[in-house]
């Protein structure tokens, strides 16, 4: 293999580039990124960075002394993959020929239709998003977060910490019911009420209202005015100075349409990242790996997956597919809200029970185990990093030997 192109320059792409070099690949390495920035860490964007506790230099993922001998092609998005030419098409017209390709194009934040051009309305995915939101939060006032998922909850907690008046709006009856189940989703999202942050559930957003000075024509900056309220389907109007839309992300795979790479809610992959095309693997948020533990494909949008999984994909790529796919570690993620550390590992969806094994939910310090037919399938911890780590280790090592109590 003489040239490998890594398409995507965030954590998954960087991890793939590192694995290529670590595994002895000595050829040309091109890393393509649509953002201008070198790889940076996204989790702090909704927490410490947004709160102003850390700066941009702290976000850099590369070490000062690190040299991957890569060509960085930044600020240009990939627009196509030509399987016959073995080339990546770039938006600026260039082609990058490569005999190995790592797809790591990630996901993009979903937006609310019709909110473009209204000042004070944000999504949070990139460093540029975070800079803009941080500037708006510094104005103070009323913050309305649309979506009670993890990004929304973290932004709400950060806004609360900055002294804003915060409201969270969630369309589902219980926030976080998808990743955590109804019971634990309710317990974790009770953190909002603990701190006097309003949480409105089971109500959809109809639209936003703003100061639309349309009679003045389109202003030079293309901005129509500033949001002043979020309008709900039940007729209520929630006043807002700043709005954050945290309603999930969609995989960035449009550029692969017609390329021959099979897509199904992201790039459809085996349990080692191999795609339907030889010499092409996919990692990170855009990749839907097969998980032998659940017997299904699943796109895992977690930092840890973007960190750990590329190594397996790179091994497969370098061996031209002649490897035995392993079993990926169970998905793990964390969240920090209102000073509480939340950790989760495994799959809540298949569980038929969840029990608190340690601590108490009212204390916001506990460990809960999800089981299916008596077998542990997932663990949730709140402010229990030590105990959580032990259970995570057991669940990862061998789910059948998971102990009744890891204490």
């Amino acid at each position, binding site marked *: 293999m003489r040239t490998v192109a890594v398409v995507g320059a965030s954590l998954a792409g960087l991890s793939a580039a590192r694995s290529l070099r670590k595994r002895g690949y000595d050829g040309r390495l091109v890393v393509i990124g649509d953002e201008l920035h070198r790889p940076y*860490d996204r*989790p702090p964007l909704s927490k*410490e960075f947004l709160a*102003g*506790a*850390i*700066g941009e230099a*702290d976000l*850099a*993922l590369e*070490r*000062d002394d690190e040299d991957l001998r890569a060509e960085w092609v930044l600020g240009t998005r990939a627009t196509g993959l030509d399987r016959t030419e073995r080339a990546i098409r770039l938006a600026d017209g260039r082609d990058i020929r490569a005999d190995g390709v790592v797809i790591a194009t990630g996901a993009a934040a979903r937006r609310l239709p019709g909110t473009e051009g209204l000042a004070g309305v944000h999504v949070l995915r990139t460093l540029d998003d975070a800079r803009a939101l941080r500037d708006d939060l510094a104005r103070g006032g009323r913050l309305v977060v649309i979506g009670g998922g993890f990004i929304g909850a973290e932004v709400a907690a950060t806004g609360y910490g900055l002294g804003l008046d915060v409201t969270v709006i969630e369309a589902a009856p219980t926030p976080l019911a998808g990743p955590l189940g109804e019971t634990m989703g309710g317990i974790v999202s009770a953190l909002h009420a603990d701190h006097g942050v309003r949480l409105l559930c089971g109500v959809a957003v109809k639209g936003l209202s703003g100061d639309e000075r349309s009679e003045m024509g389109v202003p030079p900056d293309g901005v129509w005015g500033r949001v002043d309220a979020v309008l709900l389907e039940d007729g209520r109007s929630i006043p807002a100075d700043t709005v954050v839309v945290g309603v999930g992300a969609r995989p960035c795979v449009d550029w692969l349409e017609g390329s021959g790479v099979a897509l199904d809610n992201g790039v459809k992959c085996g349990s080692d990242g191999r795609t339907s095309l030889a010499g092409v693997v996919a990692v990170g948020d855009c990749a839907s790996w097969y998980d032998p533990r659940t017997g299904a494909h699943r796109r895992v949008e977690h*930092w*840890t997956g973007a*960190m*750990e999984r590329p190594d397996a994909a790179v091994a497969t790529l370098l061996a031209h597919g002649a490897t035995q796919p392993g079993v990926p570690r169970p998905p*793990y993620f*964390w969240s920090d809200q209102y000073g509480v*550390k939340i*950790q989760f590992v495994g799959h809540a969806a298949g569980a038929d029970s969840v029990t608190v094994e340690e601590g108490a939910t009212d204390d916001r310090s506990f460990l809960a185990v999800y089981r299916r037919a008596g077998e542990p399938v997932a663990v949730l911890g709140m402010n229990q*990093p*030590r105990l*959580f*780590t032990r259970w*995570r*280790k057991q669940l990862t090592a061998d789910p059948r030997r998971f102990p009744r109590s890891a204490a």
Partner: protein
Amino acid sequence: MIPACRLADLPRGEAHRLDIDPPVSVFHTDDGELYAIDDTCTHQDASLADGWLEGCEVECPLHASKFDLRTGAVDSPPAKLPVRTHEVVVEDGMIYVRLSTQAPNLPPCVAARLAGGPA
């Protein structure tokens, strides 16, 4: 030298944290080796004694940074800076730590707090 704990009270696979400033932890590996490193992850405020010990490596309990217990080096990001290592001495069944004289690599949030800045 600072007394940590009795060797008999620190089983293999476990860690013992000394509540000094900054805290230091002694790890007893599955192979029976003893190592002492700074307890605070250099990435963010987390206790490595709560982490995942495997071989001569500890994984931060929060964000999965890995450190080599022998050298303090980062084996896996997001941490970028090493932790300090400290000398471990066992005398009469007691574990002691001789602290490094180097400056610690504390995470930005903790460093800012110690300097009196925003937490």
